[in-house]
């Protein structure tokens, strides 16, 4: 079972208390009525689906109820860091990055066969 650090509860909790809430740091257009259909599709539907380091929103739905941001490695499922909603994208601490790389060497993965969704 994964332990996830909630930045509001200031504690590691079981993954069972959390729910994934999609890619993080997607800015809503300033004037959404003015953008083209293509720009809307880009904003609304298309996601990067990164292999490796990804920034996601998570919600501590069965705890404090808060949404927050997490940097996660999609290969090893390791959470590299979490931080409060509303903060800009945070750099991953170097020590966490090295740990993730070391872990990836021992994790068997499918080769990436699909290109960038965009």
């Amino acid at each position: 079972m994964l332990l996830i650090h909630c930045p509001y509860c200031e504690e590691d909790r079981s993954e069972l208390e959390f729910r994934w809430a999609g890619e993080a740091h997607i800015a809503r257009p300033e004037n959404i009525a003015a953008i083209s259909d293509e720009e809307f599709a880009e904003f609304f539907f298309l996601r990067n689906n990164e292999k490796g380091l990804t920034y996601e929103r998570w919600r501590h739905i069965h705890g404090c109820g808060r949404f927050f941001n997490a940097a996660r490695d999609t290969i090893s499922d390791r959470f590299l860091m979490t931080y409060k909603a509303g903060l800009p994208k945070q750099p991953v601490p170097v020590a966490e990055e090295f740990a993730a790389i070391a872990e990836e060497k021992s994790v068997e993965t499918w080769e990436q066969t699909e290109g960038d969704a965009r």
Partner: protein
Amino acid sequence: MAELGSHIATRSLPLSGVHGGSSMVRLEPAAPASRISLRVRAEDVPALSSALGVDLPVKPKTSAYANGRTALWLGPDEWLVIDEGESGLMTAAANSGVLHSATDVSHRNTAILVSGPGAAAAINAGCSQDLSLDVFPVGACSRTLFGKVEIVLLRTAEDAFRVEVWRSFSDYAFGLLSEGARDAAL
């Protein structure tokens, strides 16, 4: 026309009459209580605290007790306030004079009292939180999961907990606690 008076329905509690436990754990339904679900912005916490007569805790996983009322921190702007008596929690909150959201959830929740030397073990049968005394001391509280249902857990003594659960889930919670109580006595 129907005759009222002696024919008024009597209130029945979701867990009335049940009992359970083991040689290590005692399980009993808690007495009826008044409860509100309260949302308040940080700057208005002092006003609500004085209106309710209990200081809303602002530290995660903590609770406060005063004047028969317990305030449990659920989130950065969310509390569950429990009054063991027939309280005027809603009126008191309304008299705070500041912006807030209070919902009477007295009948949405019921509570199970879990006590005895195996109390923590019985709860851990369905709850992944660390209930050791240094991590979850007396007075600590948390919204969390117990098996498949959401609960609010409050430690009332070293070997006693209050499990707040939605009334329609209370049979499930009591059943799983009974299993946990038996396992704790093995």
